[in-house]
């Protein structure tokens, strides 16, 4: 096949990627967008297979067959709660693939010789560095999210020192690759050093910061692909990689802003759960308990109800019960909305997927921006398994570690009912003044049980 046709087909593929991502601007167009992107990928694969560069098809068939089977099984069997782990794993695979492709180009010697231009060698080195870092970092992220990896070493200055030395060594190897790429061994040493650095950087990061880490690794996997595109002078790799790099970068920024953490403080920070104490002085004598009976009466008489879910709800698998409660309330003419904080789940948009799986229509899901001012017009806010993201201290107390974090202004609702097992603190490790507010009542119990009780009580009131 002539070079022009191949490159033309790659251009078509790149265009389909852009159109596909554009489709995600609306929920209605999203499925079509995903189909367009996958068509783009199919075009790119088919034209590559027809290219004259392919001599033997056996190995290609094996690779495609094994990969497709494995990918399909993983995608079809994953539970929606485990989506962050799966995306973390896929990020790692993408990064690893890019590093290996660059390695193969260097090993074959035909693409990369001592005479190879500086920029191409540099691109190969970047691909190996970023790809290996992404692979190792993603493996750690997967392990932490899957909860098979509980080890979290401290982030002391000694560790920082070791990392600095390791980073310097990595840079030296990087320079060596560029100086003479035909040597080959510096490339593999670079890959190994980058992998160790990836492990050491992600191991000290706690589970709460994982949304930022996954988004960052997502961006890195795109950059690795783009760098590989520079090595092979292949535009579809460069464009596809740049798109993913941009997407991951935007999500990283959004997530770290929503968590009130800078990317640097996530990677190198020492902020663990702070010594906020159990909050006795805040809670003492101010906590009001309520019962399912009372709450059901409150809900029955409300005109508007806002449900504020947190990851605790998903852990308790209460989303289906929450949906049933919503249906019962709507049957009675109550207006029900869901308020979704960006970090309500374990990755950007995770809570929305969990609720969609439970058949909650997407029109009922509202994000931070859409909710500005709405809580003041809400009769009852039901907080289920959310904690730090509804803590008024983020607005009021400049000394609080979460000060400045965008929160849902749940305390502005006329009445607040917090459904929770106990007064235990959230990820930030600090007491929540919402629980002690005069318009708040605590309904202690398991999320799903409480939902079932509420539905029963509502039905009993006729």
């Amino acid at each position: 096949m002539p070079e022009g046709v191949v490159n033309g087909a790659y251009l078509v593929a790149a265009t389909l990627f852009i159109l596909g991502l554009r489709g995600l601007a609306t929920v209605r167009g999203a499925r079509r967008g995903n189909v367009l992107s996958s068509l783009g990928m199919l075009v790119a694969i088919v034209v590559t297979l027809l290219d004259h560069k392919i001599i033997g098809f056996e190995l290609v068939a094996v690779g495609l067959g094994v990969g497709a089977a494995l990918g399909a099984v993983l995608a079809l069997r994953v539970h929606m709660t485990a989506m962050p782990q799966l995306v973390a794993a896929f990020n790692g695979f993408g990064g690893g693939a890019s590093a290996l492709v660059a390695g193969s180009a260097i090993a074959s010697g035909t693409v990369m010789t001592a005479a190879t231009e500086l920029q191409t060698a540099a691109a190969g080195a970047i691909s190996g560095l970023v790809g290996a870092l992404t692979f190792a970092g993603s493996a750690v992220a997967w392990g932490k999210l899957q909860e098979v990896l509980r080890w979290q070493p401290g982030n002391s200055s000694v560790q920082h020192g070791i990392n600095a030395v390791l980073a310097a060594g990595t840079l030296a190897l990087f320079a060596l690759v560029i100086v003479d790429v035909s040597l080959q061994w510096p490339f593999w040493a670079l890959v190994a050093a980058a992998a160790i650095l990836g492990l050491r950087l992600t191991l000290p990061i706690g589970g709460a910061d994982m949304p930022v880490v996954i988004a960052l690794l997502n961006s890195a996997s795109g950059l690795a692909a783009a760098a590989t595109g520079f090595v092979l002078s292949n535009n579809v790799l460069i464009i596809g990689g740049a798109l993913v790099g941009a997407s991951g970068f935007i999500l990283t920024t959004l997530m770290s802003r929503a968590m009130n953490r800078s990317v640097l403080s996530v990677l190198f920070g020492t902020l663990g759960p702070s010594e906020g104490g159990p909050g006795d002085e805040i809670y003492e004598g101010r906590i009001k308990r309520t019962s399912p009976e009372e709450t059901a009466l409150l809900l029955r008489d409300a005109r508007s109800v806002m449900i504020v879910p947190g990851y605790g709800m998903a852990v308790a698998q209460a989303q289906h019960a929450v949906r049933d409660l919503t249906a019962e309330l709507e049957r009675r003419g109550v207006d029900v909305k869901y308020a979704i904080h960006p970090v309500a789940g374990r990755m950007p948009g995770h809570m929305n997927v969990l609720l969609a799986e439970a058949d909650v229509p997407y029109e009922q899901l509202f994000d931070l921006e859409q909710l500005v001012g709405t809580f003041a017009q809400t009769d009852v806010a039901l907080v289920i398994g959310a904690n730090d993201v509804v803590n008024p201290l983020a607005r009021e107390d400049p000394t609080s570690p979460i000060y400045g974090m965008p929160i849902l202004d749940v305390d502005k609702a006329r009445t607040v009912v917090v459904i929770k097992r106990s007064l235990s603190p959230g990820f930030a490790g600090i007491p929540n003044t919402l629980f002690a507010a005069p318009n708040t009542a605590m309904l202690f119990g398991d999320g799903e049980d409480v939902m079932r009780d509420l539905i029963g009580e509502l039905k009993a009131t006729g």
Partner: protein
Amino acid sequence: MEVFILALTVFLLAAFIGFEVITKVPPTLHTPLMSGANAISGISIVGAIIAAGAQQTTLAAALGVAALILATVNVVGGFLVTHRMLSMFRSRKR
């Protein structure tokens, strides 16, 4: 050098398009966005196919097959799981 500048131009323009397009994605769709974009980053599958099929050296081919398996998992798994998620989003009016 000229090839490199051309490639850099393509990269920068694509990154800008990416920023423009992706800032318009609503937060509701951020998880499918991530898994879908992830599948696109599997585009290194193109390089992997060439590496596995061009039969230059044994080592190059072996690395190519390993890359191909990883990239294919990424592509097939990424698009499928995105499709699965998007199929769950339902409108009230139905």
